């Protein structure tokens, strides 16, 4: 996203301009996936600013030309006149420790599935969780506050948990190696164990 007075209206003009992200997180990987379609890799200039609050503030202060944000920071930025020059979605994943047993994981996912269905039946009812979160609310107050009517609801996408496919894993692994984000001597299957998730899918 860019601030209201910015001259950036589409991704190509962000070549060689500083963009705030959090390295090794969704904001890092998603911005690369979005910008590589417009800008040569060597002209994508990302800077590590940490959590979304600091990326938002760096954008608003003009320290950076753009910041990669997620909700509810996107809605707060839009309410303050900022605009998206590109927008993408990525998969959120549950990462369980090696001592999480399959029965417990399946029980958790059954509860999460009920919650997903409830959220999708009336998203506005649950937006207070986003608005009131302690890392967001004080900053939002400084920037005019945020209400449930400020959100673009289709942007909020909740789906039943399910394992990603071998093909998705392989494609993502190859993409990370290409961007030098992963050591190619490590095989994708060396660090991903989908057994617990596979058992959930089998129960569906």
């Amino acid at each position, binding site marked *: 996203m860019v601030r209201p007075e910015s001259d950036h209206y589409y991704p190509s003009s962000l070549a060689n301009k500083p963009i705030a992200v959090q390295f090794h997180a969704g904001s890092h990987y998603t911005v690369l996936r979005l910008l590589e379609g417009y800008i040569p890799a060597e002209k994508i200039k990302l800077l590590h600013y940490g959590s979304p609050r600091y990326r938002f503030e760096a954008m608003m202060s003009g320290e950076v030309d753009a910041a990669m944000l997620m909700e509810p920071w996107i809605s707060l930025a839009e309410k303050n006149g900022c605009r998206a020059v590109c927008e993408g979605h990525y998969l959120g994943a549950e990462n369980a420790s090696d001592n999480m047993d399959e029965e417990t994981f399946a029980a958790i996912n059954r509860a999460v599935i009920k919650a997903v269905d*409830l959220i999708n039946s009336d998203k506005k009812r649950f937006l207070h969780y986003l608005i009131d979160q302690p890392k967001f609310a004080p900053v939002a107050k400084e920037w005019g506050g945020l209400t449930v009517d400020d959100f673009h609801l289709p942007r909020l996408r909740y789906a039943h948990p399910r394992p990603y496919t071998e093909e998705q894993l392989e494609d993502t692994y190859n993409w990370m190696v290409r961007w030098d984000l992963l050591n190619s001597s490590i095989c994708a299957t060396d660090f991903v164990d989908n057994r617990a998730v596979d058992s959930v899918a089998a129960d569906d």
Partner: protein
Amino acid sequence: MKKVVSETSGAVFSLPWFVAKDEGFFADEGIDMEFVESIAIKVDQHTANPEDVDPILGHTPFENRQVAIYRA
């Protein structure tokens, strides 16, 4: 009830978990769910090199085995 401790990150990611807890869906499954918030990352040196940054980021409760699961 089986106790499970989960790390929470941004509410946009953890929303189904918050709702599942508050609506009693975890309890219905015999899960006593407790949340530990991930640590916000504020950096003073805005490096352009990803190798300068520990990829664990704010997920230290998971790395320290305080929690059994997190999402990102």
